Structure formats: C-alpha cells, structure tokens
C-alpha cells in the first residue's frame, strides 16, 4: 500500500473517532440543558484555560524525522506513527509519584548516616559507620512527604511509537519506542493563559532498518560489510533530561502555538548508532472544539538543516 495512502487512512480514522466522540459529547450537553450533566461546557471556549483543570488528551500522530532528523546519509527519512496520551492534573501521575516517595520514605528509616571510617586491623579492613537518630520533626516530615506529593498536581505525557502501525520496511523505516515526560506547568491568570512547562524527560527510540546510502551511516567508516553500497543499519535515540515548553494562545481559544526543547544530559552520542540529541519542536494546536484538536509541528536537532514534521489528531477527555 502506498505510504501516502496509509497516512491518509490513519489520519482519517483518527478524525472519524474524534468526530464520533464529539457527537456523543454534544448529546451529553443537550442533557446538560435538562440538568442531567454536572458541568456544562461551551464548545470552543476553554482554549489554554484547560490547563487549570483535570483532563486527558489522546491522539494519533504520524510524521518523519523527529529526534532522527539530523541523521545524514539516509535514503528515506525515518518515519513515526503512534499514540500520544497526556494527563493534566490526573491521578495516575499522583499515584505513581506518591508510591515512589512512599517507598523512599519507608527506606529512609529512623537513622541517618553521618559518616564512615575505614581502618586496617591486622589482616582485616574494618569499616565503621556512624549514624544519628532522626529528630521527631524530621520523622514527621518524612511521614508527610507521600501525602504532600499526592496532593500536588502534575502533567504527564507518554508518546508511544510503534513500527507496527504503518509497517517498517527499508523503503519506509519506522521508529519504535516511547517518550515520557512528567513535570509541572505554570500558567498566567488570564482567561486564555500562556503557560510554561518543565518536566523530567526520558525517551528511548529504535529504528531497526534505516537504509543508508553507499558510504554513509554510522558504520560507513568502520569497515562494516555493505557500507560501500546501500545498506541497512540500526539506530537508537536515548534522551534523559529536562523538557521545557512554552505555549501561548494565538487566535482566541481556537489556535495555539508552542515550542518545546528537550535538554539531554547524556551528552555526546554514545557511538554513532546511539544518538543523544536535543530535539527542538515548534508548532500549532488547532482546537476544532474544546475536545477535538489537531497538532502540527516541525522539529530540528542541533543546527541540522533537516526539518522533521508530525501531524496529530486527537480528543480531550
């Protein structure tokens, strides 16, 4: 099946689901007028104000490039398709973080290590650890930490990339893996607020069948057989670090702009096949209604002139 046809079908199916859900919600709002619904919501009125409340976004996306957009020598660019889920002020992030902090609090114990001394006694090396008892105030703070974390509000995003959606071939290599973000968002107090988000970021993407031109690719200079002709190599991208995002309304509640930068602390590429870039993405969010949206953005890695792009259609729940 031609690649464009597959993209078209994916996008069409996503929009069909979104439209169906909209009709369903519209039906609910009709009941709202009769008092059945608890929260009446006017279509296309919330815009960026949604970040002040609890909601989810689920979208299907497809595109090319992404964190691999700076890879040189590819016969065809790396493709992406997958599902994005965003939780704003939801319970999954609260619960997950709360459990982690509760685990850490439980392991902290009632004593704190203050130092160690190592000395030789005859044939033995003896290490002596020194502890102090935690104060009641410190114990109370540790005990209160999980509850405080669960009382917080967070924003969590998971992008799952699957080569299975469109099928990965050497003519159309597709990435598999995920991008995970967990952090917080600061918003202004206006009705259509601008917002700034920071988040812990971890990503792991793999392309098993990237087709490189003769003499190109990570192993082109290492004497790998096949490097002198068109050949397939495996690429991975790993990101561990901080994500920064700025989002602002452009036209009321209908059109928003955003820019996102992933700061990768892993530094230089770990070998030429394991990439550690700092993807920068900028694009637009179109709100067809409060619950139906489309996203389009371009992406670059470093100072590469190769620009990737992604299209997404989704619903807010």
């Amino acid at each position, binding site marked *: 099946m031609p690649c464009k046809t597959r993209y078209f079908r994916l996008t069409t199916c996503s929009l069909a689901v979104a439209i169906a*859900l909209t009709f*369903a919600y519209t*039906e609910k709002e009709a009941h709202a007028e009769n008092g*059945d*619904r608890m*929260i009446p*919501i006017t279509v296309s009125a919330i815009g960026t104000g949604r970040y002040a409340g*609890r909601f989810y976004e689920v979208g299907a996306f497809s595109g090319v490039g992404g964190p691999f957009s700076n890879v040189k020598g590819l016969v065809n660019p790396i493709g992406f398709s997958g599902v994005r889920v965003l939780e704003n002020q939801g319970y999954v992030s609260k619960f997950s973080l709360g459990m982690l902090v509760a685990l850490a609090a439980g392991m902290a114990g009632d004593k704190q290590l203050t130092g160690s001394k190592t000395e030789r006694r005859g044939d033995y090396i003896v290490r002596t650890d020194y502890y102090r008892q935690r104060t009641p105030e410190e114990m109370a703070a540790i005990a209160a930490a999980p509850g405080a974390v669960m009382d917080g509000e967070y924003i969590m995003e998971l992008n799952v990339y699957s080569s299975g959606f469109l099928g990965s071939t050497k003519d159309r290599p597709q990435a598999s893996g995920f991008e995970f973000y967990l952090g917080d968002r600061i918003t202004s107090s206006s009705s259509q607020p601008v917002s700034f988000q920071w988040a812990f970021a971890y990503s792991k993407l793999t392309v098993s069948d990237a087709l490189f031109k003769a003499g190109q690719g990570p192993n082109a200079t290492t004497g790998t057989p096949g490097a002198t002709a068109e050949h397939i190599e495996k690429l991975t991208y790993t990101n561990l670090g901080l994500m920064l995002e700025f989002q602002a309304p452009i036209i009321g509640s209908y059109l928003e702009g955003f820019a996102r930068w992933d700061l990768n602390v892993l530094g230089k590429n770990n070998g030429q096949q394991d990439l550690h870039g700092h993807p920068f993405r900028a694009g637009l969010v179109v709100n067809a209604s409060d619950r139906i949206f489309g996203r389009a953005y371009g992406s670059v890695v470093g100072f590469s002139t190769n620009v990737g792009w992604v299209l997404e259609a989704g619903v807010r729940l």
Partner: protein
Amino acid sequence: MKRFFLGVILAMSCVSPALADDFDPANGWGTSFMRFTGTYLHGNTERPLSPAAGGAVRPAGSPNTTKGSYNNVELAFDLYGFFDQTIFGTFLGGEMSTALGSHGQTSFDTPVATDPAKSKGGTWFKFDFAFDFDVLHFKKGPVAARLVGGLGTGFEYDARRWYLADRNESWRGYTIALARLQVWVREIGFHGSIHYLPNISGAYKQRESRTELCATFGSFAAGVRLNRLSIWTPGVAVPAVGVPAVPGSLVAAKDDKFSQTEFGVFGAYGF
C-alpha cells in the same frame, strides 16, 4: 486526591450507594459497587510436550505438542468506583479485583511424553487494579449506558500452572488494558468487557485476554466468560527423534506458539 481515596474507603466500607435502582451513569461519579462472583470454567490447552523427569524419548512421528483439558473454579471479589471527573465530564475512578481459584489436573490426549509433575492441579490467587476512565455515558428515559476504558497492573500466583512450573516460576506480573460497555434498560442491564493482559515478568511471552458478557437484574448478574492465552516459547530446540530431551525444558521450536482457552459461566451479586 483525598476525596478520591476517601471514596475508595467508603466503597470498601459498604457505605456507597447501590447500583441497582438509583444508578445514573450520566450523573455517576460518586457511585461505586462491589461484586462477589463465582465462576466455573472448562479449559482446553495445546501445549508443548514436556519430557518426564530423567529424559523421555520423543517417539518417531510424534508431534511436539499435546492437547488437554481441565476444570477451573474461582471466587472473586471486585470493587468498582468513580470518584472524580475531568473538566470535560470524563469520570475518573478505579477497580480492584481479587480472586482465589483452583484448577484440576489436566487430562492429556497424549500423556506419555508429558511430565506428570507439570500437569497437576493447584490453587491460585490473583490481584489486580486499574485506573478507570468513563469516557462516554448517557441516560435517556429508561435507557442508560456507559463506556469505560482502563489501564492497570496485577499479579498472579499459581505454582501449578504449566507455563510457570515449566520454568520453575510460581507467579507472573502483567499489565492491563480494559474496555467495558454497560447498557441498562430500567433494572435490566447488559455488560460486556474485555481485559487484555500482556505479562511483564517470566520467561515466556504471554498474551492473555479475559472477555465477559453478562446480564444483570438488580443486584444479580449471570453470564459467560472466555479467557484466552497465547504463549511464545523462549526458544528451545526440538530434540531429534529418538534423542532424550533435557528434563525441565520445553520440547518446542523457537517462537512456537501455544494456546489455552477457558470458557464457562459465572454468577455474581453486586451491592
């Protein structure tokens, strides 16, 4: 947050409103219910031959799989509830399920090459929970409906289940993706759900689905269940014909796929 967990505690304390008469899915957050369930399932399995201790000899012309059947009974306690909602009206909640069961000894069509120690029945236990999202719900006249999706995780202990015993394991962990459609016409309800449970532990790649269809009248429910399990072996070479296999290893080709299907009936009481 406190309201969410308070809701769970209230539900566990039997204080929550009953589902049967006053349930309104279009105004349903705060509603919760519990369910006691008894289930009987008949299982059919096609599994790799596992040699007897000491090394069985694979006869010439014999297949490397065998078919068998067993019976399974279980008692379960489930808890469902929605305690908050998003700005778009999606109800947020969760569900927990605990089950204690017992499966009988498996009767094989070709028992000669099957390790008897890995065919015995045994008691099993499972616990799982999921975050639930009631994404669509409405009520119009006597008809009400809701569509729920969920994500969660759980674990199962079963020292006698062959795919665990064969690798000297006794438990497995799994993730959950679920969908549930519920439709009511006055007090009569029809529920259908599917849980998809890929495992996250163990030596085998397992893909399990649990499908449930039932009708409810007031607090009572009865229906059918179908559990399907597919397993890919980690890749143990098939021994040559006439050569003793290594005890404890599967006599299976790499990436061979095996299956297990359980089908049966259940009855439940919700409150």
